[in-house]
């Protein structure tokens, strides 16, 4: 490093000092360099170290770049706060709108009354294979030999005398107390106090159980799945058998 480079580095390292002080120091060190034989770097060490000697105990003015950064930081912080607020607002709205319309575990809810508009039914006494594809379904059981439903979206599609398909829809559904096989893909299912044994195959979805005081025998085979919060009772009358892949089985909570 020659003297010119050293002076340049020193000037940069002293950027925090007021201009008059910095000019005096630079000129003085430069003057020393002109009179002495050896390079400044050999006499003073690094320009940064020398600058530090000057800066110790000095009141350091913020360099312009810091001031700009300081202003930018305030702007960025403002934007950050706005973004966080927006995300929080979206979160609150999502929670509000995504929340269940009523407590599905409440089997006496007005929404479940057959007198409400939108409810449809079909006589059904056979066993049921219920396929649910990219949909959500809340399933109840009743004593009638019928299937009753109220869907937002397409109605369940009867595939055969023993098969029903719910696709891209959100349904409340009453089933007769017959054997049921439930196959769900990318769907959210709520089983409210099942009154029969059920075989459930679920993939990439969730199955929630509102036990409402009942006890069940749970049999679970899972692949990259979670089963939690439900307790199995061997003496229970009904068995809920789950074969789940990338899915979750848990208690229903409103």
């Amino acid at each position, binding site marked *: 490093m020659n003297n010119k480079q050293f002076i340049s580095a020193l000037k940069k390292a002293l950027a925090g000092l007021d201009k008059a002080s910095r000019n005096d120091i630079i000129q003085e060190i430069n003057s020393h360099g002109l009179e002495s034989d050896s390079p400044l770097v050999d006499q003073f060490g690094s320009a940064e170290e*020398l600058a530090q000697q000057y800066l110790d105990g000095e009141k350091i003015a913020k360099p312009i770049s810091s001031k700009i950064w300081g202003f930018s930081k305030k702007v960025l912080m403002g934007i950050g706060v706005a973004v966080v607020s927006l995300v929080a607002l979206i979160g609150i709205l999502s929670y509000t709108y995504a929340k269940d319309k009523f407590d599905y575990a409440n089997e006496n809810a007005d929404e479940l009354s057959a007198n409400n508009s939108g409810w449809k039914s079909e006589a059904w006494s056979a066993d049921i294979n219920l396929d649910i594809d990219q949909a959500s379904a809340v399933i109840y059981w009743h004593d009638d030999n019928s299937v009753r439903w109220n869907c937002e979206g397409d109605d369940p599609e009867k595939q055969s005398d023993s098969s029903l398909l719910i696709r891209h829809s959100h349904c409340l559904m009453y089933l007769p107390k017959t054997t049921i096989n439930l196959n769900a893909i990318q769907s959210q299912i709520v089983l409210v106090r099942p009154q029969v044994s059920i075989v459930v195959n679920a993939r990439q979805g969730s199955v929630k159980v509102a036990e409402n005081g009942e006890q069940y025998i749970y049999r679970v085979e899972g692949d990259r799945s979670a089963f939690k919060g439900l307790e199995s009772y061997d003496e229970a009358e009904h068995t809920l058998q789950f074969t789940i892949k990338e899915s979750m089985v848990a208690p229903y909570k409103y």
Partner: protein
Amino acid sequence: MHSIMCMIFLMDTTANYQKWSAQLRKGYLELCVLVVIRQKQSSYGLEVLQTLEESGLAVNEGTLYPLLNRMFKNNWLSSEWVTPSEGGHPRRHYQLSEEGLSLLPQMLETFQQNQLSLDQLKELK
């Protein structure tokens, strides 16, 4: 005597000694610089450095110039840029300020009093 020299050598290598030495030296060096500038009435960095060295007090350039700057900021020194009569680049000349002039006798007295106290302690039996 040999063991004392060894102890001094060992002390010299310790960080604590270096710290103590630096603290002692700082005030002492300021006093010496004030004395040099008073004797010369006006002097610049390189000249002060050479004078101190000739008196057996070796000082780094990186120590002296920031020290002069601090003493200037403390109002112990005043400074002006002087171009030598024979020509060449301007030099920053320092003089004792009024505050420096009044302070120096007190500093010398304090130093001499400390030296006297130390001498007496060394004679203590």
